[in-house]
């Protein structure tokens, strides 16, 4: 079992930092390059959500990401202390976005559900949002090389 956490200013420049940090950490488990891309995509989507929806791009705020790896299992948590989500069911619908004016696709949470084995969201309006995703690496990459 191994664990890390990172936190950083809610600026879009830091999306790339967060993605590299998480991907570098999980590379210890020797994922396939495809699995690595999936994980990076999920981190990008989740961090972008925290920055643009949770904090509405207030760069004074802090985004928290943590990651735990245990044998082939990865769990990643992305948290913000932002506006929160009133209706989580609705937010999870494909194509739903509360910010159509920013040309958001509304597909972030759907992509996460596709790439991960498990996606859990908890949120309190006015307090913030916590997203937890889990993935088990394929046996091929975890054991047979």
């Amino acid at each position, binding site marked *: 079992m191994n664990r890390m956490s990172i936190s950083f200013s809610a600026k879009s420049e830091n999306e790339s930092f967060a993605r*590299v940090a998480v*991907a570098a950490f999980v*590379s*210890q488990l*020797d*994922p*396939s390059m495809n699995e*690595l891309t999936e994980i990076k995509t999920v981190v990008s989507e989740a961090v972008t959500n925290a920055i643009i929806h949770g904090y509405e791009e207030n760069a004074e705020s802090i985004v928290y990401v943590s990651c735990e790896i245990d044998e082939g299992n990865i769990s990643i948590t992305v948290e913000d202390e932002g506006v929160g989500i009133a209706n989580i069911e609705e937010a999870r619908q494909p194509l739903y976005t509360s910010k159509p004016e920013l040309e958001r696709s509304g597909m972030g949470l759907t992509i996460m559900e596709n790439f991960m084995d498990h996606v859990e969201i908890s949120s309190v309006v006015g307090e913030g949002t916590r997203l937890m995703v889990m993935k088990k690496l394929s046996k091929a990459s975890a054991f047979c*090389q």
Partner: protein
Amino acid sequence: IGEIQRFLRDDGAVKVSRSIKELSNQVRKTSEQLMKELGRVPTVKEIASFLELSPEEVVFAQDASRQLASIHETIYE
């Protein structure tokens, strides 16, 4: 110009935004080559050992090039 570029690169004075691009190309080429040889998508350690880098450095090279390409454009072009 080739000489000068090589000199700058060897000299280490070259900016990250330029130098990392080369490394990310190597990661991409190695990945394609291993895919052919193995008949499946390679793992990050397979690429790392081929390039004699750590897996973490492979991740950095692959990803940083995207971010840095845009820095390079805004600063130098």
